[in-house]
């Protein structure tokens, strides 16, 4: 019963929600909205699970004085600080500290982390783009033209390069993206069917 009932729930909910899409009745729309609200609420409780796990791991790290335990204090301070400043009595989402923590701590660090990737991507590109085969050369040319698109130092070559880059982005790139998106869609539908029919049971974990 520990496995059969969850499998039955998945089957019933899955078939019901898939069929509901084709029923344009107000009750059906209400059920759809209500079910999505369910997902949001259950997801938030699952987030609490993740936060608790994060706190426990950090606390254990501090208690055991394991390597780099000092940084766990910073992580916990950030977490509790943000939660405290975002509480309703501090002003909630409009709280001064909450907004400033977001604008002057989260945004600068995250933006810089993404900017850092430019350097690591460049070194990865060197390894990947060595034109060893025709396929690698095609990859290299596609990337090179698109990268040169915004280069202000090309002079008279700037305009044709930009046009070529636009063509690559709008024609062969579009074709490749479409095929990939169709592939992803088919894969997702197939996986969803496997889950609903109980063929894929990885979400149930181990006993």
């Amino acid at each position, binding site marked *: 019963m520990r496995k059969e009932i969850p499998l039955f729930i998945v089957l*019933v909910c899955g078939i019901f929600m898939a069929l509901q899409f084709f029923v344009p009745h107000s009750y059906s729309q209400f059920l759809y909205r209500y079910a999505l*609200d369910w997902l949001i609420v259950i997801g*938030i409780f699952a987030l609490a699970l993740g936060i608790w796990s994060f706190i426990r791991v950090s606390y254990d790290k501090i208690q055991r004085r394991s390597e780099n335990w000092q940084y766990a204090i910073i992580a916990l301070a950030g977490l509790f*600080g943000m939660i405290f400043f*975002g509480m309703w009595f501090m002003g909630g989402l409009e709280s001064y500290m909450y907004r400033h923590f977001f604008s002057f701590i989260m945004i600068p660090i995250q933006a810089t982390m993404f900017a850092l990737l430019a350097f690591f991507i460049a070194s990865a590109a060197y390894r990947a783009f060595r034109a060893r085969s025709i396929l690698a050369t095609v990859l290299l040319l596609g990337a090179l033209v*698109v990268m040169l698109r915004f280069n202000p130092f090309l002079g008279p070559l700037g305009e044709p390069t930009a046009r070529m880059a636009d063509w690559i982005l709008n024609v*062969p790139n579009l*074709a490749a993206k479409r095929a990939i998106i169709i592939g992803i869609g088919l894969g997702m539908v197939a996986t969803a069917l496997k889950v609903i029919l109980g063929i894929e049971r990885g979400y149930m*974990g181990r006993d």
Partner: protein
Amino acid sequence: MSWTEFLWTTLGAILTLCTFSFLYKDNPFYKIAEHLVVGVSAGYFVILLCFTGLMPKLITPIMNGSWWYIIPAILGVLMWFRFSKKLSWVSRYPIAFYIGIATGVAIPVEMKNRINSQLFDTMKAPNFSGDWFVGVCDIIIIIGVVCSLFYFFFSKEHKGVFGGLAKVGIYTLMIGFGSSFGYTVMARISLFIQRVQELRNWVTLTKTRTDFTIVLWVVVLVIVLLILMEIIKHLKRKPAETVS
């Protein structure tokens, strides 16, 4: 700019520098920024989801008398049984509801948004009414999509005509991957330029302020303290550990 705003901007600039220090190697300044952003991001999403999810989707409906909204809350609480070794199976019920609803919704939505919409746009007749080149591009797109899909079909060996079409597909995919890569690199470089501009703005700002000296000393003090901490940590290590 007020004193407090200047302090916030300085904090942002220092954290930017701390993160950029990773270009040298993994170091305490980067680790501080890294751990701080993990904690702050988690806290940010907790509050955001409480106010935009929990309040309007659970608390407000229950307060307004829609008692049946208690059901997802009970299911959510059941999720916490995951921590219990004996009763972890209970958490399968809310997961089953979640997975069942999500997969059920996904099937028609994916069919409509990904598969059908892309197929409809691909199967349009080539447009030769105006510029002939547009029509040629439309044909290239159709051939590219079909051949790329042939490449993804692994149930048949890529030989003969099928293999030739799959080869055209892989070339199309390679151009696609290359251009996506180039686009991503340019996006990162734009972000890098933006961060450097922010730093430059901050440096310009510091020149116009006399009270910057205090901030500078605080920053220097923090950096010295961190370096001292690192030295003490290094000295405390056992000789064998240092060698390894």
